[in-house]
């Protein structure tokens, strides 16, 4: 996969950006911040119409059969408008998990419904502070799944979940229907992400993979979602840089454009640097899907994209002064999203350690 976008990919980039910008609505997004348990249905409808839900799912299963590169391009457009719900990432993650399974029946049952966006999936991997605990406390036995997964993105709205569990002492990826699972929806600072605590009790499930296969697959799926998220972060950071730049050439203070002050000017130039490094890492990572160095590339993308989005959020607000901290201006939509995306798919400590482990061979 080339790191140079071809014409088709460039078309996806401009089209997805156009669609997301046209259908995003700041007032709707602001309202969602104060509504627990809701998400942007209009966005999800758009994603379905545009075929984004099945973008990276093979045509045989009703998808479009493109790659992580194209999914990343769409995620970047979504990130630019703090659009959407986490489902684009989690549905693709669930599909990737299923595609890694040897259970053809399971694939046939769920992949087409994920591709069509008819079903929303959550990935319930993390426990405590770990996004992928080496020995999960959630158990899978003949009696079903038992235990708790806290703060699962998308879970509030998901029909199914892919659960990281321990089955007879071995790790396992288990697919389950959430219809009868107890969900405690979380009130937080970015409510449209659909975070919920899931409590399993004799919840029926079907095995996607077990043992070493499950471990490798879970890590790959997590890395894949991290790459999608990193694209979303780059999109957000880039939008903030553009907003900051436009404000800096418009707003005047002390008789001149504030962009002429080096504290503003250099800060935006530094943002540009962080964004371009993150963007390059993202494209590189997406192009390494399935290769031996995919984890390293994903971690590099994740680390640099988080730094870029966090810095852009802090600095773009600061450059705006008072107007930057009002509810209506809405820069806090990005600030909040920067934080939620920094934590979803594992915080920086996790990715630093994973990458350092890959580079040094020494575990944390």
């Amino acid at each position: 996969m080339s790191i140079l976008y071809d014409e088709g990919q460039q078309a996806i980039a401009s089209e997805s950006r156009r669609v997301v910008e046209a259908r995003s609505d700041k007032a709707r997004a602001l309202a969602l911040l104060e509504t627990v348990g809701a998400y942007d249905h209009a966005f999800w409808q758009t994603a379905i119409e545009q075929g984004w839900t099945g973008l990276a799912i093979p045509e045989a299963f009703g998808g479009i059969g493109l790659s992580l590169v194209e999914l990343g391009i769409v995620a970047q457009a979504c990130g630019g408008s703090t659009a959407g719900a986490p489902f684009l990432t989690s549905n693709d993650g669930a599909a990737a998990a299923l595609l890694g399974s040897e259970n053809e029946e399971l694939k046939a049952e769920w992949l087409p419904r994920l591709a069509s966006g008819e079903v929303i999936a959550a990935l319930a991997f993390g426990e405590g502070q770990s996004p992928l605990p080496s020995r999960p406390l959630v158990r899978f036995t003949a009696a079903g799944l038992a235990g708790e997964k806290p703060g699962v993105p998308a879970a509030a709205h998901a029909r199914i979940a892919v659960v990281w569990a321990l089955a007879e002492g071995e790790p396992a990826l288990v697919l389950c229907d959430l219809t009868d699972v107890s969900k405690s929806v979380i009130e937080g600072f970015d409510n449209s992400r659909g975070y919920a605590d899931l409590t399993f009790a004799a919840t029926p499930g079907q095995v996607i993979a077990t043992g070493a296969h499950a471990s490798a697959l879970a890590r790959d799926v997590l890395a894949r979602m991290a790459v999608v998220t990193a694209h979303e972060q780059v999109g957000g950071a880039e939008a903030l840089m553009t907003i900051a730049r436009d404000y800096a050439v418009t707003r005047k203070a002390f008789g001149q454009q504030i962009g002429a002050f080096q504290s503003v000017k250099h800060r935006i130039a530094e943002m540009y640097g962080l964004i371009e490094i993150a963007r390059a890492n993202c494209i590189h990572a997406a192009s390494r899907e399935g290769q031996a160095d995919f984890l390293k590339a994903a971690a590099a993308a994740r680390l640099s994209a988080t730094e870029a989005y966090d810095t852009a959020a802090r600095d773009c607000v600061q450059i705006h002064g008072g107007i930057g901290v009002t509810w209506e201006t809405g820069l806090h939509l990005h600030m909040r999203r920067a934080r939620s995306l920094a934590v979803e798919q594992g915080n920086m400590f996790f990715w630093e350690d994973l990458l350092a482990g890959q580079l040094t061979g020494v575990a944390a």
Partner: protein
Amino acid sequence: MSDVEDFRARARAWLAEQATTYGKEARRGLSVEDDLALGRRYMAARHDAGFAGINWAVEIGGQGLTNLHKVAFEGEEMAWGMPVVYFGISLGMPVPILIHYGQDRDWVKERVRKALRGEEIWCQLFSEPSGGSDLAALRTKAEQDGNGWKLNGQKVWTSWAQYCDYGVIVARNDPNVAKHKGLTYFWVDMKAPGVEVRPIKLAGGDSHVNEVFFDDVKMTDEQRMGAVGGGFGVALHTLMIERYIATDSAGFGPHLDLFIDLAREIEVNEKPALEDGRIRSAIARNYAMRSGLEAITARAMKMMEAGMQPGPEGSLQKLVAVRSRQRLSELAIDLQGNAGFASDPHAFVKESWTASWLNAPTGRIAGGSDEVLLNTIAEKILGLPQDHRPDKGVPFNQIPA
């Protein structure tokens, strides 16, 4: 024990008695209106107890004590989470300026008493939408109108204006002179006809600042404070008047101990967070920064005690502490992983890492942005040159908008 320490001990004892009625736990879950009402009762009690207007002259209704006594009381008070936030600006800047410049002294005395008791609140109307960090760029007009004045224009970022009885305001009386020369300072009745207050919701979800519109609001010439055209000087006086305020090395966010308590419960990659070098570094660096700021404050107190002027390094407090609070709050959220998504939008900023993080950007902008503070340090303390100022000396109405 010095006089100040004696006073501090009395203050602490009194505060401890009041805590169950007015303190943090009593306030938890109250609406802003109920909290304000509680605050007014607390202010009255504080006045009755002789802890109001501590460093103000006895003639005007103060206690006639030193700045040091005031800072000592505020330092103690801060620990209890009393509902004083509504009165901080009122007593910090507008009322002291009124004491200094107000023309009708009896009227002034009455206002001071009511302000100290929380019965009346004053706001400060300086910032304007087009102004930003540039105070002298304001456009609100005060025109001569018979013997008095007529006020038209718009102010913004006015804290607690929706609850205020009076305000102090700077307005442009002459657009034909250089921008900082055509300004005059007044007090204004916030209930007068033509005054309209519209709350602004901030990123954290609260609305304690406002837009204030003035539409042909009448003022008598008695409401003028200082000379016609002397408003910029009075405004600078306002900004200087309360240099001796209690500082907070936590940047008005949570104490470092809360971070340590949090980290104690958390794992980083399946090991205790407190054993991780990154977390240890964050704790140690944060402590070093805070202890330095606290030592600066302690030295300033000693200097005041010795009748000396504290050094200019006090101006670092907000710049350093709030910026650092923003990073530590982010870190505290990140550390928690998926458990960090949950947050109560109405939590106290000094208790909740999410509330602290959401409001930190406001702290970095309000009351002198980071950049303005850096410029001030560079120019006033270090003697570095001013930025390029194309507006300098140009009549206000000839500066391109």
